[in-house]
């Protein structure tokens, strides 16, 4: 008899995570699971801690001096702060796409190949294959296949952001973290990114921070509402938007504040 799992397993999970910048508490005792092969949206007003939480998941906050945390974050059941897990390996398994597209001032090809090269892949054929696969995966291949050697800075804003997604996908991470990936894009480019997120979740586990309520509703399976550094409520996206348990969540998703 096949095992019927009613809910997918948790790819990542934060348990009572508190993070401080100096003495200022940025997020307080957050417990939140990121289920595998689903899109989890993190919403909330500016400064609510959702980006900080996202950046904790691949330890990008380590780069900011004066941060320290308590609590645990698990990846496949192992703490990401475990000594046995190198932060470099963690970031290869948990990739990130930033709010502002940030391609390197290199060619399109070299941008996508970057993560592979620093990982030690030298074989040209293998590099080319992975670059093409990633660009196809990011729905950018047809637009750039004839100018892979041109500078990535010549691409439009939307193309640059898809290039950054391709670049993150090239190292074949298990989790993709997206920090407002479409906030600087026009509606058409945004639609492309959202479509892409839909396709990507069969391969990746995705956590996305967004300011845009409609976007969270469109792309995500689960939604977590952050407010003033705390997790107010988390549940299936439909329930959060139609029948939230908390008054604050309802006020936020209906636009009463934020």
């Amino acid at each position, binding site marked *: 008899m096949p095992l019927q799992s009613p809910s997918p397993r948790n790819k990542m999970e934060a348990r009572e995570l508190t993070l401080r910048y100096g003495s200022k508490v940025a997020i307080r005792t957050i417990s939140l699971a990121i289920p595998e092969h689903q899109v989890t949206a993190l919403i909330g007003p500016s400064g609510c801690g959702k980006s900080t939480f996202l950046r904790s998941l691949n330890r990008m906050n380590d780069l900011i001096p004066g941060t320290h945390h308590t609590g645990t974050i698990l990846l496949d059941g192992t703490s990401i702060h475990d000594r046995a897990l190198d932060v470099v390996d963690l*970031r290869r398994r948990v990739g990130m796409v930033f709010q502002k597209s940030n391609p390197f*001032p290199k060619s399109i090809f070299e941008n996508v190949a970057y993560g592979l090269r620093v990982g030690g892949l030298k074989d040209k054929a293998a590099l080319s294959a992975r670059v093409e696969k990633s660009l196809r995966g990011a729905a950018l291949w047809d637009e750039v296949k004839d100018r892979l050697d041109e500078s990535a800075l010549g691409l439009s*804003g939307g193309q640059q952001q898809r290039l950054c997604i391709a670049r993150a996908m090239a190292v074949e991470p298990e989790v993709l973290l997206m920090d407002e990936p479409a906030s600087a894009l026009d509606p058409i480019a945004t639609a492309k990114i959202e479509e892409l997120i839909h396709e990507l979740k069969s391969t990746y586990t995705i956590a996305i921070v967004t300011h845009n309520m409609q976007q969270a509703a469109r792309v995500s399976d689960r939604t977590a509402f952050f407010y003033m550094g705390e997790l107010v409520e988390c549940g299936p996206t439909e329930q959060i938007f139609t029948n939230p348990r908390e008054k604050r969540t309802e006020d936020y998703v209906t636009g009463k504040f934020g």
Partner: protein
Amino acid sequence: MKHTTRKAVGLALTSLTGLAAFVIVAVIAIILLDVVRGGAANVSWAFLTQPPTDGMMGGGIFPAIFGTAALTLLMTLAVMPVGVLTALYLHEYAPPDSRMARWVRVAVANLAGVPSVVFGLFGLGFFILFVGKGLDRALGYEEMHWAQPGILWAALTLAVLTLPVVIVSTEEALRAVPLDHRTASLALGATQSQTLVRVVLPGALPGILTGAVLAISRGAGEVAPILFTGAAYFLPDLPTHLNSQFMHLGYHTYVLATQSPDVEATRPLLYATVLVLLMLTFALNLVAVIIRSRTRRKAASAGH
């Protein structure tokens, strides 16, 4: 204040600042005009390729050009690695509240303020009398080999002098590499050193090169630091070893201007030598400006 007084003050300030600016331009114009008028006719192929003759009242300045070039090249080889590595430590590795880094910065700022003749004495005392003598003793030379003025010691002295230029411009170049590029690299699983080599240094390279050119143009024109450390009064032979003495355009200018038995006879040579030295320095500064404006254009096109 009355309306007329206000107007008068405004007018006075405008003319005063304008006049100050004009004086700068006028001084440069007068120097250039005078040097070009006196020197242009005397700069010939023969002048550039022949050694001085007739007690330096004839012939050319080739040994001085060669000596200046060789000296500057050696200086660059010495100052760039030390300067760039220091800047990398200060900007990339030292913790932000590092006491060590603060002391290094104070030292660099003070180094930039030391008069150049003091560097000359330092070179004599440290490189020649201390390091050179020690080398001679260690290597078993009977007569003076390293413990005498030579092109290596002069180059190292100039390297110390130009170190602040390289450190400051390299640090500025590193600061100009966008934080976005560093975080992107780290988020892709690159180590800090991979990020440095593959992203930060390529991004900072134009700025580092600008620093190199500025250091060269500064070093090529300095005379005081090489007076006691290697420059020769008159030496038609080109330097062949690291401990050879050498002729130098700046020092040659000084010699022609002050040591000639016949001022009228050396005047055309003096003008021509100064013209060559000025053109060399201007050309180097021009290269620096071109590199910088190219970088700026690149940065601007990366902005959208």
